[in-house]
């Protein structure tokens, strides 16, 4: 059973540097890292279980959070912890591991997925670090092992700018994906929903899989966001919990049981206008981008983003991708003053507003975007903008105001449980007043999480 859900609201930002459907040969990363900041709700100073020079294997725990000591944050590779990088107030920014040339994993007993019990699945996922593949809504944080979610949602479509193509990523992982779905089916009391792009030819892994309910989505970004899909398939009401997981992690999860090793494979799309050869790289969670971008850049004055241009995080040229990232984007820094730029823009730039009619209707191969804010932050003035890019039955401006006023009842009433900051990324992009909408939404989610315990 499957049905088509058409969404009209949203916006596809056209940017140069879409990845070619090609896997780079012979890529290896020397270092890997795990960053506490990748996990919403995790304290900035987690309890470290290793120190510099500790030898670890893939699946060995590096740290845990005092709020739930069962959830281990583990090393993706074997090697030596070479640096524990600290930031302000001793917050742990990164635990960096120098990888062995041959990666050894902690090994677990190989299992037939059909015979697995829920308890042993949860147990092995918690101790291997694979538990973090699961994220829960509300709040978009690590799942709670005590919950049984009403459903699990998987999106097979990243609609964000230059987002990786899961139909490419999932090639050859048909049996792992199927086995992973079987494992997941023991964790939920309800269904597993798989949402796909109606305008693409789905990968065999998605096409042949059993045990999921398939939904077809069509429309501009954020139609591929799992939060938007949940809202249209089976919205989250107060007190309900759903989990989400990335399709590649579904396959990685299967390997934990079928082969008994922790192997968090990340097929990463290197994208963006400043990349000479945008393509895919097969690597592991937390890999360094150094070898991807070396001799592969058009310009030196660039920003490296782990993730996409809307929700990614800035990293250095030798930085590491985050736990959930399957994309690296490189764009120009836009820190030049622009004479009368609001009247005569000096270079083409994406816009949804017809106030820059020359760019709003153009359909070029893509823009060479920069990090310029194209104007200063102002008081909130223009209404109706956010609504055009949020395909949900939610009043974004009023939700944001409720968050700023810390009005918990109103936040709840206006649907805070259904949203994540990534769903509001386009609101922030189109905002005339240049307001940091995502920060406010995250603040609201953290308030609610704190409030509800």
């Amino acid at each position, binding site marked *: 059973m499957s049905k088509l859900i058409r969404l009209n609201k949203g916006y596809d930002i056209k*940017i140069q540097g879409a990845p070619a459907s090609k896997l780079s040969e012979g890529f290896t990363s020397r270092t890997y890292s795990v960053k506490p900041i990748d996990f919403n709700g995790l304290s900035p100073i987690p309890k470290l279980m290793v120190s510099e020079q500790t030898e670890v294997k893939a699946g060995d725990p590096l740290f845990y959070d005092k709020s739930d000591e069962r959830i281990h944050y583990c090393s993706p590779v074997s090697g030596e912890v070479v640096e524990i990088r600290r930031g302000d107030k001793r917050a742990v920014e990164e635990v960096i591991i120098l990888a062995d040339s041959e990666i050894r994993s902690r090994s677990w007993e190989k299992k037939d997925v059909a015979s697995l019990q829920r308890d042993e699945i949860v147990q092995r996922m918690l101790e291997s670090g694979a538990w973090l593949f699961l994220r829960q809504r509300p709040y978009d944080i690590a799942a709670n092992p005590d919950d049984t979610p009403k459903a699990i949602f998987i999106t097979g479509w990243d609609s964000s700018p230059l987002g990786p193509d899961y139909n490419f990523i999932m090639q050859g992982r048909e049996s792992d994906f199927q086995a992973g779905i079987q494992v997941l089916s023991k964790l939920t009391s309800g269904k597993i929903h798989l949402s796909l792009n109606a305008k693409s030819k789905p990968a065999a892994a998605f096409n042949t899989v059993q045990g999921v309910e398939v939904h077809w989505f069509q429309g501009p970004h954020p139609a591929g966001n799992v939060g938007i899909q949940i809202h249209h398939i089976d919205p989250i*009401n*107060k007190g309900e919990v759903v989990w989400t997981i990335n399709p590649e992690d579904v396959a990685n999860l299967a390997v934990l049981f079928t082969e008994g090793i922790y192997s968090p494979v990340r097929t990463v799309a290197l994208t963006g206008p400043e990349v000479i050869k945008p393509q895919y790289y097969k690597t592991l969670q937390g890999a360094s981008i150094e070898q991807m971008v070396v001799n592969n850049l058009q310009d030196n004055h660039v*920003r490296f983003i782990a993730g996409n*241009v*809307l*929700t*990614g995080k*800035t990293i250095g040229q030798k930085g590491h991708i985050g736990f959930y990232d399957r994309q690296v984007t490189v764009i120009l820094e*836009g*820190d030049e*003053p*622009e*004479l*009368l730029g*609001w*009247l*005569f*823009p*000096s*270079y083409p*730039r994406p*816009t*949804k*507003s*017809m*106030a*820059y*009619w020359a760019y709003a209707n153009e359909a070029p191969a893509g823009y060479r*975007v*920069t*990090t*310029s*804010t*194209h*104007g*200063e932050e*102002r*008081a909130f*003035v*223009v*209404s*109706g903008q956010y609504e055009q890019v949020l395909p949900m*039955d939610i*009043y974004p*401006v*009023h939700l944001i105001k409720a968050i700023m006023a810390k009005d918990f009842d109103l936040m709840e*009433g*206006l*649907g805070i449980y259904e949203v994540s900051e990534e769903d509001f*990324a386009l609101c*922030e*992009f*189109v*905002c*005339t*007043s*240049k307001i*940091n909408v*995502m920060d406010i939404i995250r603040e609201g989610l953290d308030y609610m999480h704190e409030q509800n315990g």
Partner: protein
Amino acid sequence: MDPIKPIRDTVGKNLWKQVEELEPNFKKGGMLQSLHSTFDAFKTFLFVPPITTQRGTHIKDAIDLKRTMFIVVIAMIPCLLNGIFNVGHLHYVANGMYPGFWEGFGPKILYGLSKVLPIVVVSYGVGLGVEFAFAQYRGHPVNEGFLVSAMLIPLIMPPDIPLWMVALATVFSVVIVKEAFGGTGMNVLNVALTARVFIFFAYPTYISGDQVWIAGMSDNPDAYSGATVLGVWAKQGFDAVKQVGFSTINQSVGYAPIDMFLGFIPGSIGETSKLAVLIGALILIWTGVGSWRIMLSVFVGAFVMGLLLNAMDLAFDFNNPHLSVPAYYHLIAGGLAFGAVFMATDPVTAAQTTTGKYIYGFLVGVLSIVIRVLNPAYPEGVMLAILFMNVFAPLIDHYIIQSNIKRRLARG
């Protein structure tokens, strides 16, 4: 692609250097510290500053508030140009000269400029002065919103309004209506309309009646009369307007619908030409800067109310000649069109939800006609209707929001 590249290359870099060299003087501890906001406003007018994204999205839409407000000012230019011409045109026609459009075109423009330009200068000068002072005092950047308000104010004034009155009304509306509520984005009432309503109640003889709508008339009040369309309707009924629109020294000129549409009739400076308003509306709608939902629903509301009153007139004997004015005439008479396009659409003071915008606009239209027709004291109602609905816009939104909350609860 880049129309001013030569200028950018030659002037841009040096100018930026100069700006950067000057900047320390305006910073804390500098000689001209008290002009920091003013300096900043001019700097960011000349240059989009080199600010990059630090948190959240790494790229941002090209649009900003400067561009948005600039578009609104552009949309008002046809009304301004028409206003300048019409002020001169009516002045000469009322004195029995140059009845044709092209006759005496130059003198008409010059006369119009001599009347309109000072009002524009006073409105901008005084208003921006207050804005800069508040920005400095509060440590905020200067918001661009007033660039629009300052252009709206002259367009809704009668041509002979004393300049000190414009200044006083501008100060009142910026200080009491905007800054007292927290500045741009926080005001409940439309700033420009409040300036008008201030004069309307404080100095009514300068902004109502039959004498103020044609420039230079108050010098020689016995010679002729220059009532607005609505002024005639209110007193003498619909049919009168075709014959006695305004009387000049030699003759009496009626207002045909085409005059009302093209705007060669007495009225406030910028609102008379529905054609100019229409051009402005098209610019606002095409660029997406103004809400077509509000504009459309104002007209629908006014038309529906007009029809209702026509029906009442047929059914009962109210002895109010205004009731019989055909509903569609209401749409091209008075300031309704101008109010619908430039005033009711102010995003800060209008309803913010999509459904709310329809309701808000509809009620603005209905109330305008109610005041116009049923209130004997005020011939025009659009100003008061918009201000009234400004106050109620948050309430409309509140009910829309509540229905969303109920829908969510019912789902659970």
